[in-house]
C-alpha cells in the first residue's frame, strides 16, 4: 500500500443465512466427532425458501439425527418464531453412509514419525496464514472490528429498545491506513433487518451507543467525529433471514479468515472433518504466522502452504513479510521449517483436532463457524497459542 489508504472488511452475524449454513455444517461435524472421534464427515448445507437442504457423507460408528442438529442451531441463532423458525422449517437431507473402514482408523494410534508419512492428504489446497500487529490477537484490524461488532450486535439484537432486529445482519468496517498501519476508523456500515418498522435515526443512535462504543472501547483505535456511521444506507429496513435470501456453506470464507486483508484459500472450511487438509492447513498456517510475529521475527507475516494429493507434507512453504522482517528471510524460513511440522498427521495430532469438540461439550467447530475459523481467541483454539514463539526467538538469537 502506498500513502493513505482505506481498507474495508465485512463480517456477518451468526443469523446470516450463509453463516447459518456454515454453523449447521460444523455442528454436524461436532456431533459426529463428539460421539466418535475417528469419524469422517463431510456436510454441506443450503437454505432457501425456508427449506434447509443438507447433504452429508460420513463414516462413523454412530449416526446423528441431522435434522435435529439443524433445528437446534436455527433456534440457537435466534430463529424461534416468525416465518422461518426451528420447529416448522422443513429439512431435506441427502445422506450417504460410507463403510466403517473409511473411518480415521489411526485416530487412536500414536502419531509419530513412523506413521505420519503414511497419512497422505487426499485434497489439494493452497492455504494461507497471516498475522500482524494491528491488535493484541495479531489479527488485521478491519476484520477484527467487524467481527466483534457483529458478535455484539447478534447478542443484543432482540434486546434493543428501538426495535428488535432479525438475527441476520452485516457490518462493514473501513479503516484508514498509513504506511500499513491503521490510523483511524473511517466508516462503519451496518445493514440490519427487522420485521417491524422502526425509526432509523433512533436505531442508529442506539447502535452507536450500545454496539459500537463498547466494542471500540477495547481497542486502541477510536471513533472520531469524522467517522461515518451508516445504517441501511441503501434503503429502508426490511425483513431478512433465510426466507428473504438464501444461504450456502462456504460462501463467507473471507469472513472466516482475514477479511481479505491477507490472501485466503477459496476452500470452505465448515463441514469438513479434521483429516481434510483444505480445512486444517489454514489453521497450521495461521499458527506459524502468528508465532513468527509473536517472536518478533517480523511485524507482518503471510505464510503460504501448498499441498498435493498423495503426499503427507506440503510441496511448498513460502512466506512474505512485506519488508517488516527483522532477520534474514532465509534464516526465518529455516526456523519455520525446523519448528513447525506441516504434515497432515502432525497438524491433527498437535492441535488434537479430533478431540476438540468433546473437550468443549460438543460445541467447538460450530463456534468457529460463527465467529471466525482463525483469530477467534475467546475459544482459545490451539492454533492461536504462541508457545513456539519462544523457541523461534531463541533459535534466531543464536
Amino acid at each position, binding site marked *: 500500500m502506498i500513502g493513505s489508504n482505506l481498507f474495508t472488511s465485512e463480517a456477518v452475524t451468526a443469523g446470516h443465512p450463509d453463516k447459518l449454513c456454515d454453523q449447521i455444517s460444523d455442528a454436524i461435524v461436532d456431533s459426529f466427532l463428539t460421539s466418535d472421534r475417528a469419524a*469422517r*464427515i*463431510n456436510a454441506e448445507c443450503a437454505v432457501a*425458501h425456508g*427449506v434447509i437442504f443438507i*447433504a452429508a*457423507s*460420513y*463414516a462413523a460408528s*454412530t*449416526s*446423528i*439425527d*441431522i*435434522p*435435529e442438529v439443524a433445528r437446534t442451531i436455527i433456534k440457537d441463532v435466534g430463529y424461534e418464531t416468525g416465518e422461518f423458525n426451528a*420447529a*416448522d*422449517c*422443513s*429439512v*431435506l*437431507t*441427502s*445422506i*450417504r*453412509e*460410507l463403510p466403517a473402514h*473409511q473411518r480415521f482408523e489411526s485416530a487412536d494410534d500414536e502419531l509419530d514419525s513412523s506413521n505420519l508419512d503414511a497419512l497422505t492428504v*487426499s485434497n489439494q489446497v493452497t492455504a494461507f496464514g497471516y498475522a500482524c500487529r494491528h491488535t493484541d490477537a495479531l489479527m488485521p484490524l478491519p476484520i477484527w472490528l467487524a467481527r466483534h461488532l457483529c458478535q455484539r450486535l447478534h447478542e443484543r439484537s432482540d434486546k434493543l429498545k428501538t426495535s428488535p432486529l432479525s438475527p441476520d445482519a452485516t457490518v462493514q468496517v473501513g479503516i484508514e491506513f498509513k504506511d500499513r498501519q491503521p490510523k483511524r476508523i473511517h466508516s462503519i456500515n451496518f445493514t440490519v433487518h427487522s420485521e417491524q418498522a422502526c425509526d432509523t435515526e433512533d436505531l442508529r443512535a442506539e447502535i452507536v451507543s450500545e454496539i459500537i462504543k463498547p466494542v471500540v472501547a477495547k481497542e486502541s483505535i477510536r471513533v472520531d467525529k469524522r467517522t461515518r456511521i451508516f445504517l441501511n444506507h441503501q434503503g429502508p429496513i426490511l425483513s431478512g433471514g433465510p426466507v428473504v435470501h438464501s444461504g450456502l456453506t462456504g460462501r463467507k470464507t473471507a469472513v472466516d479468515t482475514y477479511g481479505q486483508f491477507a490472501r485466503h484459500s477459496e476452500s470452505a472450511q465448515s463441514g469438513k*472433518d479434521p*483429516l*481434510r487438509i483444505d480445512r486444517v492447513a489454514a489453521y497450521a498456517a495461521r499458527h506459524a504466522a502468528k508465532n513468527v510475529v509473536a517472536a518478533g521475527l517480523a511485524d507482518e507475516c503471510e505464510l503460504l502452504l501448498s499441498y498435493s494429493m498423495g503426499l503427507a507434507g506440503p510441496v511448498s512453504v513460502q512466506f512474505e513479510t512485506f519488508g517488516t522482517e527483522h532477520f534474514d528471510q532465509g534464516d526465518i524460513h529455516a526456523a519455520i521449517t525446523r519448528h513447525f511440522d506441516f504434515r497432515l498427521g502432525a497438524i491433527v495430532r498437535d492441535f488434537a483436532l479430533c478431540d476438540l469438540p468433546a473437550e468443549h461439550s460438543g460445541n467447538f467447530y460450530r463456534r468457529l463457524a460463527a465467529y471466525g475459523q482463525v483469530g477467534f481467541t475467546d475459544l482459545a483454539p490451539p492454533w492461536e497459542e504462541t508457545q513456539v514463539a519462544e523457541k523461534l526467538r531463541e533459535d534466531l538469537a543464536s
Partner: protein
Amino acid sequence: MTDLSQGQLHHPAPGATRARLEVLHATVPGRIRFRCGELRRNPSLVSRFEHELLDYSHFKAVEANPVTGTLLVFYSDITDVSQITSQIGSWLSDTLPDSIQQNESEEGGDEPVWHTLRVAETLARLGSKRGGLSATAIALRQAQFGANALPETRGPSDFSNFWRQMVSWPVALLGVSAVVSIATGGLVDAAAIGTVILVNATVGFATERQAEKTISLINKSPDHTVEVIRGNKQILVTRTSIVPGDVLLLTPGTVIAGDARIIEANRLTLDESMLTGESMPVEKHPERIDKVRLPLADRSNMTYLGSMVTGGSGRAVVVAIGANTEAGRIQDLAQTARPPQTPVERQLDTLGGQLALASGIACVGVFAIGMLRGRALPSMLSSAASLATAAVPEGLPTVATTTLALGIHKLGSRGALVRRLDAVETLGTLHTVCLDKTGTITENRMSVASVVVGDKTVGMTELTAAVAGDITILDNVLHGAEGLLKTAILCSDAEAKGDPSDPQFSGSPTEVALLRAAKTMGADLFSLRDAYPRLRTRYRSESQRYMSTLHRGRDSGRFLAVKGSPREVLDLSTQLRVSDGELRDLDEDWRARILTANEALAQRGLRVLGVARSATLEDDGVEPNGVEPDNLIWCGLVGLVDPIRGGVKQTLEAFHRAGIETAMITGDQSSTAQAIARELDLANGKRLEAIDSVTLDQMDPDLLAGILRRVHVFARVSPAHKLAIVQALQRGGKVVAMTGDGINDGPALRVADLGIAMGGEGSSVAGELADIVLKDDKLETLIGAIAQGRTIFRNIRKSVRFLLSSNFSEIAVMAVGTAISPAAPMNPMQLLWINLLTDVAPALALGLDPPEPDELLRPPRAPMTPILDRRDLRRLIYEGLTMTAGGLASYGYATLRYGAGPRASTHVFMTLTLSQLLNAISSRSEHHRVFGNRQLARNPFLTASVAGSIALQGLALFAPPLRKLLGTTPVSLSDLIAIAASAITPALINDATKPSRDGLVSSTNAQDKSATTQPDAPETSL
C-alpha cells in the same frame, strides 16, 4: 273447482299453516298435485298418506313421492279444491305430532335447520338427551325409521348393459352389411352376421357382468360397530341400528354413522372429503350458527354420514339416517350413473371406430374393383358386405373389458381385491409407491424393548429378570421403570379384560404394548385404573403431539399423566427424580443426556415415547377441561420395537428392479426412520434422501414437487400431510400408489392414482376407501398385482395386433383376388366362418397370456402410451402382407391346377384360416420367437382354442352339412401339403423376423432408455 285457472299455482292452502301444503296443479278435473315439504324423505309419512287418506270416501287414489315431496290425489265427487286441501291439511296437522321430524330442508319448509339451533334445542326437538335415548325410545324409532342403511344402488339394467355391447361403429358396419345381405337375398348370410354380432355381444356382456359382480362383492361394506351413548351408558351397536336421537361418541378413527349435530367437542377434527371435497380435516364445535343458508362445508357444528374423526374427541346427536342423509341424497342422484370407461377401453373404442372406417373404405374399394371387373352387382354386394363383416374386429372393445375383468379375478385369487376396473390398468403404469411405515412395512405389533430412567437405559428383558429376582439392578431404575409404565398405562385407552393372570388386551398396538410391559413388571392392571379414576382425556392431535389425562389422586388431589413425542413432553417437564429419589431440576445437562438416550434408542429403529406426570395438585376447582400440562415431572422414555414384516426387504428390491420407486412415510422422528430405511436399503444403494417436516402442506406446491422427486423417507410427517405428498409427486408427473390403513388416510387414498389398503383387522376403514385391498397383509401381493397389470396391457396389445394383422390379410387377399381372378376368392359364408373362428376365441385367449418372464425387470410404461403407434402399424402390415402372400400363393396354385372356382376357394379359405390361427400363436410375443421356444410359459387357453379351431376347420372340410354351407370341396393330400406350406411359411417368417427389444425400440419401451440409470460412482473418499 270452477274458480281455478292455470294462473293460480303455488298458492298456499288456507288453514295449512303449520304443515305447508301447496297446490301445484289443479286444472285437470279429478286430480290435484300438491307439494308437501313434510313428505320429503319421510317414507313413514308417505305410507300413511297413501293408506289413511283413502279412508276419506271421495279420495279415489293417493300417490305420494318422498323424493320430490309431492302428493297426487285423485278424487271422485264434485268437491271444491279448497275443501280437499283443507281436509288434507288438517289430517296432516293431526298426524304430524306423532312422528318426529327428520332432516333439514334447504328450501325451508318446516323442518328444523339443525345448525341454527342450540344444542339443548336440538336435543329437545329430537326428543333426546345428552345421555342418549332409552331402550323403548330406540325400539319405537327403529320401527318408525327402519334400518340406517343407504338403499342399494341400482346399476343399469342387464338389458341396457347388453344393448351397450352392441352400440359401436364396428357393429354398425356389420348391421349395414346385414341389411345389404338381406337386400341381395342372402338371408342365411344375414342370419350368420346376426349370429356373429350376438356371439360377440354375449361374450362381452357375460364377462363384464362377472367383473362387476366381483367388484360389488368387494364393495359390500360390512356392518361396522359404532360407539353410542344410550341410557347414559356407553355401548357398541351396529351401524344399521342407529336412529335419529342417538348420541354418537366421537374418537379418532370413528366413522360417522348418520348426519349428526355436534353437542360436545374437544379439539375435534373431521375428514369430510367424501362429501365436501375439502381434503384437510376441519375443526368442529357445538355452538349454533345463525345463518340459515350455509353450504355444507361451512356447517362446522354438523357432521355427516361417511365423515371420519381425525383428531380430538366429542359427541354428536344423530339427526338423519339412511337415505335421508346428505350422502343418501347424493346417491339418489347418482343412481343410474355408469362408472367411466378406463383409458384403455377408450383407446380401443377410438381404434375400433377408426378401423371400422378403414374397413368400410376397403370394402367399398373391393366392391369397386369387382364392379370394374364386370361382376354381377348382387354377388359383389354380398361379397363386399361379408368382407366388411370379416374384416372388422368387432370384438375389440370386448377384449379390453374381458381381459380387465379376468385380470381382476386372477388378482382376487392371488389375494389382491380390486375395487375398480381401471385400478388394474393403473397397476401397469405405477411409478412410485408410498408406503406407510406402521402397518405396511412393520407388523404394527409393538412391544416395549427398552426403558430409559434418568439417563440409564435398561432393556425389557433385564427389567423382567429383575422383577423375577434373577438379577439385580439399581433400585431407583427399577422403581423408576415401574412408575414410568404405570403412568403410561393410565394415560391410555387400551383395555385388559378377562383372567388377571392371562388377560385379553384390546386397543392400539402401542398402548397394548405398554400394558403388556406393565403387566410383566407386576402392575395390577385392573385395579390401577379404578384407583386413579380418569377425569378428562385429551387425545394426541396434529398440533399437540402428546396425550394427556387427568386423574383423581389417592387422596383428594388430582394429577396429570402425559405421554407422547419425547421432545414435546420434555419441553413441558421441569423436574425429574434422580437416583436418591430426590426431585431435581431438569437443567440443560440433564436435557442433553435424555436427548442423547432418545437418539440412541431411535438409532435402533425404536419408536420412542416420552412420559411425564404432574405432582399431585390440590383440586382448586378448575374444571377438568381447563387443566393444562405444565411443570411436569419427567418419568422417562419408552422405546418400542415394531418388527419389520418378513419379506418386505425382498419386496422392496423387487419394486426397484421393476423400475418402481419407493418412499416410506412415518410420523416417527428422523433417526428412527433412517434406521429403518438403512435396514431395508430403501435408497437402493444410492444416497438416502429424507425430509423431516411438520409443515409439508404449507410449502409452496411447486417447491414441494421439485424436492420430492427423489425423496425416500418422510419423517415426522403427520398422516394428514400424506395428501400433500401424493399431490406433489403427481405434479412431478408420477403415477403414485399410496398405502394406508387407518384414520387420516382417506384423502390421500382417494387422490392417489392407486389407493392400497392392507387387509386384516383394524383396517376396514381404509379398506373401504382403497382401490386395492391386500388380503393377508402381504406386500408381496402387490408385486404380483403389478405384474398382472402390466401383462394385461401387453396382452391387450397382443390381441389387437393379432386381430389387425389377420383381418388385414383377409382384406388384402380379397382385394387382390377380386382384382386378378374372374371369381371372388372366398364366398361370404367362408368369410364369416373365418371371422367367427379366428376373431373371437383366440383373441380372448391371447388376452389371458401369462406374464412374460422379464415383465418385472422393466420400468413401467407411460400412462398415456397408445396401444399402437406407427412402428407397430408398419410391423402389422408387414405381418399381414406375409400372410396375404401365403394366401395368394395358395389361391394361385389352386387356380392354376384346378381353375378358379370352389376348389381354389377352399384352398385359400383353408390357408387363411390356418395362417391366422398360427398368427395367434406367434402373437404371443412381440420380441421373442414363439415356435420352438421352450422358455415361454404355456397358455392353455390359446392352445385349446387353436386346437379346437383347427378341429372345426377340419370338420368344415369333411363334414357334409358344413361343406354344403361353406361351399368347400374335398382336397387331396398334395393339396393339403400345399395348404399347410402356404400357411406355415408366413408364420415362420413372421416369427423369425421379430424385432428384438433393443433393435426396434417401440414407444412402450421408450422408458427403458431414460430409466437406465448410471450406477452411482461409489465415493471412495471424503
